[in-house]
């Protein structure tokens, strides 16, 4: 009985959606063109995704899988035309096998290509050892490139404002308070994360201040997250009301 009612709700909703679109096209609010059908498709997919808020249903499942498939297909095409073709196929493969081109093949590209192919050999039991060469290269290069840059950009450059003098002349009282707050926040949070000392007495009091700073930062993050998720909803409703139904101008 319950399954039947779910089925009727789904069919009824799809029927209503079709009727609305027929009305919109007949009244000229939606153009009878690829653009018009694109908007209908976008509206249908949006509503199908949001239908999950009521209950998990086949329409949501179909659109969810469609999203994964389309995203992957799009990524493959973009990667081929933006990266593999201009950076590998055209400079290496085409000159090797085509007599029409005057350019010499860039044989140096064979090395990174082989390293890339070795990654895929993880799937072969006999040859998976070759993928270690690629991983060794990636880890070595990554560490060598990243460590100095990360220390410089995220530690040394971040320490500078923390060590900014409270009174160096010319600043307002608020900027001095701000500097003091930053100093207090940095010290108290760092002390909170020292777990080798028992949080009692002065250490305990300062670490409690650290907890307050952490809680305020979590609150700020949560507030921003609410704003972000709402923005996505607002954007979709703007699309539905403006582009699809034509209610908003």
């Amino acid at each position, binding site marked *: 009985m319950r399954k039947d009612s779910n089925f009727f709700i789904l069919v009824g909703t799809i029927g209503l959606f079709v009727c609305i679109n027929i009305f919109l096209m007949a009244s000229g609010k939606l153009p009878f063109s690829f653009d018009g059908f694109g908007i209908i498709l976008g509206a249908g997919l949006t509503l199908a995704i949001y239908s999950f*808020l009521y209950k998990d249903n086949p329409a949501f499942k179909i659109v969810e899988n469609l999203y994964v498939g389309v995203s992957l297909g799009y990524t493959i095409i973009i990667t081929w035309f*933006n990266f593999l073709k201009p950076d590998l196929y055209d400079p290496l493969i085409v000159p090797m096998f085509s007599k029409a081109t005057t350019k010499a093949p860039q044989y140096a590209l064979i090395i990174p290509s082989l390293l890339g192919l070795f990654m895929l050999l993880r799937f072969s039991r006999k040859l998976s050892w070759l993928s270690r060469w690629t991983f060794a290269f990636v880890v070595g290069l990554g560490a060598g490139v990243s460590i100095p840059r990360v220390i410089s950009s995220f530690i040394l450059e971040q320490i500078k404002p923390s060590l900014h003098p409270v009174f160096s002349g010319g600043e307002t009282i608020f900027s001095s308070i701000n500097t003091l707050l930053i100093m207090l926040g940095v010290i108290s949070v760092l002390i909170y994360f020292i777990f080798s000392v028992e949080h009692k007495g002065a250490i305990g009091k300062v670490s409690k201040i650290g907890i307050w700073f952490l809680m305020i930062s979590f609150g700020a993050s949560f507030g921003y997250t609410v*704003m972000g998720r709402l923005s996505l909803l607002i954007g979709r409703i703007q699309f539905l009301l403006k582009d699809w139904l034509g209610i908003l101008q």
Partner: protein
Amino acid sequence: MERFLRIDRRIIFAIITVAVIVSLVLRFELPIPASEQVLGIYEKIESLPKDSHVMIAFDYDPASKEELQPMAVAFLHHCFSRDLKVIGMTHYPGAPGLAEQAMTSVANQYQKKYGDDYAFLGYKPGSASLIINMGENLYSAFPKDFYGNDTTTMPVLQGVDSLREINYLFDLAAGTTIETWIAFGKEKYKFELGAGCTAVMGPDMYPFLQSKQLTGLLGGLKGAAEYEALVNKKANAVSGMRPQSVVHVIIIIFVIFGNVIYFISKRSVHA
């Protein structure tokens, strides 16, 4: 009282949806003052002389379109109205369609010509490696643009050999690309960097404002709305501030209501 704590979440979804729809349909003005971090980007663009090179990294995909596309459009309006040369690129394979749409639609409004006034280099993987490559030689990183044109012959790129010659770089980020641009680009090749990010990432970016590693920041739809208002191109972000504000008030009421009910029911249990 207990039943208020077990309220069906779908009722809350319905209230939020109705609040968004009503506040979008009913038109009322809300003040949108520009914050200091948004002004940082605006004033930097204002200070650039004509024909300066601005690079926009469209590092987002359709999942973050609602927040970042209005920023991209408003920023492009500002750049083209100031006759700046705009170069686009992306680290995200899902971005080219959105970037192309934004650049073409805004450029057409200012009669800007592709190749002479703006260019879109397209997508390349590599992240940090790509930035380092661009910092050493832009043409080696992008020998061809998104449409397959030879980048060495494009007039818009004349005078630009690497990231060092970029006057301002604006990263629209839905992921960790702002940190990557700072560490491997800005700090090494010494260009000015501004960023726009999703609201979720906003609080993590404030330390970079404090350290002046970012000249400015547009955080979420609010940042986009402030920029739209500054460049006088009010569109989806500005109109989105009405439901944003209304729903925030509703959520605050829900939070207070939930806590009051929780404490009352706790007290009645103890009594």
